[in-house]
């Protein structure tokens, strides 16, 4: 794992128009250097039969769960070190718990992912942002991008291979439907989507926001994997049982 220094994450949306730039203080944390691989996930599934694709509960994973695996405990050999995908949030969370880790919060993931090769906070570096967008623009074929991208924290491929689950992905309330999602700022109505955004240039962040808000916990998608994080201090409130 790599240590990511604490820092300030600026959410994509303000809570209200009158608010100044929102800031979330993120304490330092450890993050897996790579997304969890098929081989690593196999080890989990082997020791946790409830997470085998023939046995997993439909409450916790849709029918596409591990659908690219050739059997309950097998996949194509050449995929062994590729990120595991077709995994639900529940499966990812269970894996991280098994490792005595947890899924990164959205703030943690975005903070770590805002680092370029040379700078810990590159969200205002046009070249870095353009590169991320170029990755997103590529159609996601079966073979993920295999040119590794190592960022400032020595963390690999936060961009460029697969999308990744975050712990609190369902905190993106985008409907703007005040009766459905309560207490919502009305700036998120259709057409006003970007009005309360904090960074208009960071189109990649909008794409991630939109992608996350379209997910459900049981979804298992072809290009969605995960990695785990760990607290520096073991008393992080979200890690407490």
């Amino acid at each position, binding site marked *: 794992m790599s240590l990511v220094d604490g820092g300030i994450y600026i959410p994509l949306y303000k809570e209200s128009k009158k608010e100044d730039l929102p800031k979330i203080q993120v304490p330092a944390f450890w993050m897996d250097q790579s997304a969890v691989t098929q081989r690593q996930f196999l080890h989990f599934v082997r020791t946790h039969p409830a997470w085998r694709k023939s046995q997993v*509960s439909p409450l916790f994973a849709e029918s596409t769960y591990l659908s690219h695996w050739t059997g309950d405990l097998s996949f194509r050999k050449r995929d062994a070190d590729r990120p595991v995908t077709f995994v639900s949030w529940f499966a990812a969370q269970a894996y991280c718990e098994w490792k005595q880790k947890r899924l990164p919060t959205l703030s943690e993931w975005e903070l770590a992912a805002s680092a370029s090769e040379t700078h810990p906070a590159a969200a205002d570096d046009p070249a870095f942002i353009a590169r991320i967008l170029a990755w997103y623009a590529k159609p996601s074929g079966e073979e993920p991008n295999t040119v590794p991208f190592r960022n400032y924290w020595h963390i690999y491929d936060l961009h460029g291979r697969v999308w990744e689950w975050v712990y609190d992905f369902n905190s993106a309330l985008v409907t703007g439907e005040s009766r459905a999602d309560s207490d919502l700022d009305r700036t998120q109505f259709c057409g006003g989507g970007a009005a309360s955004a904090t960074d208009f240039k960071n189109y990649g962040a909008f794409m991630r926001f939109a992608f996350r808000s379209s997910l459900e916990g049981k979804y298992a998608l072809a290009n969605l994997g995960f990695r785990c994080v760990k607290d520096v201090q073991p008393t992080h409130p979200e890690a407490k049982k």
Partner: protein
Amino acid sequence: MAIGFLFIPISGIPQDPADHLRHTVLDTTGSTHKDSLYQLEKPWRQASGKAFTLSDLKGVPAVLLMFYTSCEYVCPLLVADLKEVESRLPKKILKTIKFVLFSFDPKRDTPETLTAYARKMKLDPSRWILNTAPEPTVREMSLVLGVKYKPESTGNFSHSYMMTLIDKNGVIQHQQIGKKQSQQDFVTHVLNQFNPER
């Protein structure tokens, strides 16, 4: 959902709604209810201080809400809507059905706070079960119910307006998203759960 419903009058429900109802209710299909929310194992804590898991409801239809007590705007409406549902149900059903509330706010919603809230809102303790739990337990519940929520810097939460009806096997039968003018539609869904012809 292939659930052959037999109406099984449930008698002798203990006054404490969280007492484990150990008897198993078999349905006519012998289905194992793979979608049952009873699979959620992380325990909640009730206002009474006792532990609660959804499988404690075995055999009993219930309505589930996520809320928090210091919510000033929407949650009182949500709870009021469920109270309206309650007021439209016949006594016989009220003896059985449970209304289960799960708090987003583990920091402020202690069992004591929940107890005070239930008293203030006049929620009948034989039927209303208010619960609190640490964040990962809250998150898991929100994901199986499809409720979105987000803590705000003020300490409040933005969250979905959602009422969920589960059947006596813990399977979701109906969800009402968003505030409705009338609760009649939801009441009809509840009544269906107790309809002997199902």
